[in-house]
């Protein structure tokens, strides 16, 4: 379990815009480890975990994109059916409210990982560290 930096990018919800932005990200050598997108009719928020968040943020700002760096939690899970459900229920049991999440097969380790955003990532991670299930 650890805190990692997520980059979020504001983008208009028009055909081709997503591919365009991802192309720019790729052309600039930014390596995406995990990615998700939240959308409305008019706009979307692209969220991704790059290898080097500082570098990624700088590059994207220079491309006139509106970016934000956010600290999020990355928690490993059991690679079995129900693994994600178990992890998330234990998080909820500790009274931690999940704002959004996305999960992937692996980020740095062999185990599948869930990325979670909460209101107080540092504080909530401490709670998890102290709990029986996660320590």
């Amino acid at each position, binding site marked *: 379990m650890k805190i990692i930096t997520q980059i*979020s990018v*504001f983008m208009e919800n028009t055909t081709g815009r997503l591919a365009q932005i991802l192309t720019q990200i790729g052309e600039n050598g930014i390596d995406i480890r995990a990615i998700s997108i939240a959308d409305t009719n*008019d706009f979307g*928020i692209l969220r991704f975990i790059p290898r080097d968040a500082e570098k990624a943020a700088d590059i994207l700002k220079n491309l*006139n994109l509106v970016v*934000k760096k956010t600290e999020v939690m990355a928690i490993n899970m059991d690679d079995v059916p129900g693994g994600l459900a178990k992890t998330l229920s234990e998080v909820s049991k500790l009274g931690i409210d999940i704002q959004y999440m996305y999960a992937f097969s692996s980020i740095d380790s062999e185990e599948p990982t869930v990325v979670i*955003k909460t209101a107080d990532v540092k504080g909530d991670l401490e709670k998890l560290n102290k709990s029986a299930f996660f320590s």
Partner: protein
Amino acid sequence: MKGVNDYKMGNYYQPEIECASPEQIRAWQDERLVKQVRHMYDNVEYYRKKMDEHGVSPDDIKSADDLHKLPFLSKADLRDAYPYGLLAMPLSDCVRIQSTSGTTGKRVVAFYTQHDIDLWEDCCARAIVAAGGTKDDVCHVSYGYGLFTGGPGLNGGSHKVGCLTLPMSSGNTERQIMFMRDLHSTILCCTPSYAAYIGETLREMGYTPDDIDLKAGIFGAEPWTEEMRRDIEKSLGLKAYDIYGLTETSGPGVSFECSEQKGMHINEDHFIAEIIDPETGEVLPDGSKGELVLSSITKEAFPLLRYRTRDICVLNREKCSCGRTHVRMSKPMGRSDDMLIIRGVNVFPSQIEEVLLKVGNNITPNYQIIVDRVNNSDTLDVLVEMSSMFVADDVKSVAAVEKNIKAQLHGILGIQANVKLVEPKSITRSEGKAKRVIDKRNLLD
């Protein structure tokens, strides 16, 4: 279509005035202007100061030829003088106020004595008779009633003519049509947008123009094109007439279209019209395009001299076949300021900018205002470029920014705007500067 060719040429409400000789009109203007200048100088400190600063006294005004010597009045003066600064009669002699649409900061409060109301209603009566109205008509008034001058003005005019007056105001359109049918309305008075909407609703209810008895309509309070006129005439089966006025000059009835429909006759016994160059203030000859300036020479409580309307038009003194001798003004062709009229409400781009400044923590983001017309109703879209001020990692926060801007705009403007956050640099720039207002309505043809 019933009644389109039914009007009688040569029907006037006050023929001895409307068809007076140009010399007689001129004599009225000379006499009344001199009296009005004295009235303002003696009773309105704000205007007396202005005249003094301008180096002109009432003795310098001996006829309408001297009008150009007087200082202008503009909306800014009305704001500075709000509310009583331009009142020329004791408050106890005033029986009414009317006020413009717009925000608190830009409201104009006009005061009226009973005499002012009578004269105003006479002007509206002239418009109704010019549209073929007689005491046997049923006048359906769907302009808003209340502070807005449309309803009260045409309501009063209708009474003067002796029509059966239906004080409908706007809204509840199916009921309006029911009354139109059951009480056989023959003249409709409302905004062109609302007339178009009534036409649509009529069709949706399964009726055709043959199912109603309208013969004429008197439409104004917002810009409208010849194309809109044709559409309205078709959908309601009537002859559509234009009318013009401002709250500052009492309301509708400053000028009105006659059967010839080649411009609107300005009631020159009540108003002296000038056309000026909006940049220099120089008075331009008849036939020139410029800003219309109006001087009220018969109003008592709240008379304005050389009031800059910001409307651009042309004056035409050629003889009109209708028999009226008062000068005609063209439909306004634009404005000398950046004011927009959206759904009947006055909107200044600066008001929108003010809201964005507040929301953006003292930095105005790049924005663009797009005004369009969809289904006969004006739409207002405000595009705001996303910036580091608004950036968030979740949809809720961004949506909240949009919602907040929308709510603040509604508070300031009084109308709903669609707010859309867009990516930086997506608002097209020309020569480094973004075009702030795009009006797609093509109101000037």
